[in-house]
């Protein structure tokens, strides 16, 4: 067997599987998004960009989903990055029981989103849930909230659950980044008279840019694809107040059987995915040729 064929056989499974399941399917989705296909059977007529025009001009739920996706992303990333950095620094200080703390911070990562959704629905349940029960028990009845049953708070509740579930990841990446700072650099700052605080603020944290880029990329990707938490905690409700793109797409395509319209939301999500990964792609290419 020639060398070339052998090499091809090695990389063929990846090319075939990813080629079909990711890129082939995406192309198919784009194609479906240009049709009016709905309900059982197959086909629907070609309608050009009608689905997209409707999404962006008249569809209120789509607008809500888009805004909620952005809101969720902003809260999720806005908290997760500083929190991860803070916890990583705390772990890096000389503390007792570091490995226990680290395990505790990473523990929620082991939970499925389904499990977290159930747990946090229970936490945020207004009448019998843990948080309001806790507030009543310590005499802070006035602070009890409607949580997930409120149109304004639902998306914030979901963001909190998401932060709980996923912040361990950013702690982990930052911790690895901080541990990777050569001790000589830290020592040099010490000799120059920098306090521990200054050492972190001026030397160690500014060196975490690659870690931040990595975390940012992964968190962006995850906040676009989050589905389980919203689907199970609020079902996009009350009303459509906490609907996000991923749940709106699923509901449109598979609960209402409007495949053409759902495919156009899926296509928009593909475009958003690509926009998120472009900086990543550029970084990868650069390091490839360095």
């Amino acid at each position, binding site marked *: 067997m020639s*060398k070339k064929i*052998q*090499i091809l056989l*090695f*990389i063929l499974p*990846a090319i075939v*599987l*990813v080629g079909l*399941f*990711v*890129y*082939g399917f*995406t192309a*198919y989705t784009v194609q*479906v998004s240009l049709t009016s296909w709905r309900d059982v059977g197959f086909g629907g007529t070609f309608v050009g960009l009608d689905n997209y025009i409707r999404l962006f001009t008249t569809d209120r739920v789509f607008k809500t989903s888009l805004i909620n996706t952005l809101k969720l992303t902003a809260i999720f990333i806005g908290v997760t990055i500083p929190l991860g950095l803070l916890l990583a620094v*705390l772990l890096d*200080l000389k*503390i007792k029981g570091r490995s226990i*703390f680290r395990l*505790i*911070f*990473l523990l929620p990562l*082991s*939970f*499925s*989103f*389904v*499990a977290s*959704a*159930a*747990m946090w629905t*229970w*936490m945020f349940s207004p009448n019998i849930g*843990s948080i309001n*029960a*806790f507030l009543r028990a310590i005499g802070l009845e006035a602070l009890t909230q409607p949580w997930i049953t409120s149109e304004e708070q639902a998306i914030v509740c979901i963001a909190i659950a998401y932060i*709980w579930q996923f912040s361990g990841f950013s702690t*982990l*990446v930052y911790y*690895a980044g901080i541990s990777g700072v050569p001790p000589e650099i830290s020592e040099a700052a010490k000799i120059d008279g920098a306090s*521990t605080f200054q050492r972190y603020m001026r030397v160690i944290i500014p060196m975490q840019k690659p870690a931040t880029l*990595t975390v940012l990329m992964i968190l962006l990707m995850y906040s676009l694809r989050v*589905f*389980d938490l919203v689907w199970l905690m609020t079902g996009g409700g009350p009303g459509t107040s906490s609907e996000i*793109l*991923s749940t709106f*797409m*699923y509901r449109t395509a*598979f609960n209402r059987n409007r495949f053409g319209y*759902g*495919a156009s*939301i*899926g*296509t928009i*999500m593909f475009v958003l*995915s*690509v926009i998120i990964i472009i900086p990543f*792609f550029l970084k*990868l290419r650069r390091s*490839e040729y360095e």
Partner: protein
Amino acid sequence: MNKQNSLSKKKSGKTIKKILIYLLLTLAVLFYLFPIYTAVNTSLKSNQELAYGPVSIVKSPEFSNYKDAFLKIDRPMFNSFVITLFATVISSCLGAWCGFGFSKLKFKGSSLIFLVVVLGFYIAPQSILIPLLRFIGSIGLYNTYWGLIITHTAYGMPITTLLFRNHFETLPNEVIESARIDGCNYFGTFFRIALPLSLPGFAVVAIFQFTNIWNEFLYGLLLTQGTNSQPLTVAIANLKGTTVASWNIQMAGVIISVLPVLLAYIFFLKLIVKGLLMGSVKG
């Protein structure tokens, strides 16, 4: 005198810092553990005791809740074990195979192909769901184990290939070259030299895949119906709808469902951390 004063000042400053550090750590621990505490606490309460609320610590633990929950999810749990086992083994093996190709058998353009494969990991699944359902249905695998095994294998390819390529990059090329000189073709080199040396990599990839597939929900929701081949996550999500307000049973189910991965985290944290970092940082 003065010196002593400043020394004690310095010391008390240090104590304050220490207190601050541990205070922050304690707050973080509370944030991460409180939901787990209420879940476990609730799962052990009888219906009667549940009426007193979820926070007060359970007085007479009702372990039968776990039995009740288990009886509702035993079949989906078995399904999840089968699906996760097969998908993990197949996707890890294919990842090793392809990762070797992309790492040790480079040719012009192979790094570009590799990049395109890896980027598949970052595409939101919503952009492929409609054709996925149609495809799995048209090959007769809707509502079967194999439908989900194939799906998880396919969408696992970018990450398993990436993890194994990174692993094989740490193997010196000379090892491969010397095997070639000894008359091995690429297949022989892979099975006799690379594969035995990649066992640590296998552990990392397998545990990464196991945790991801066990916890996955969306594909299970899309590709199954009824309990025949439904994965555990979907069954747990359904507990909510079928049993009216029995939070204790639901929480018991949740605890049972997370145990396998939770135990993996506790016992194999090092491997898991390695997988998470390799899958992201070196991405």
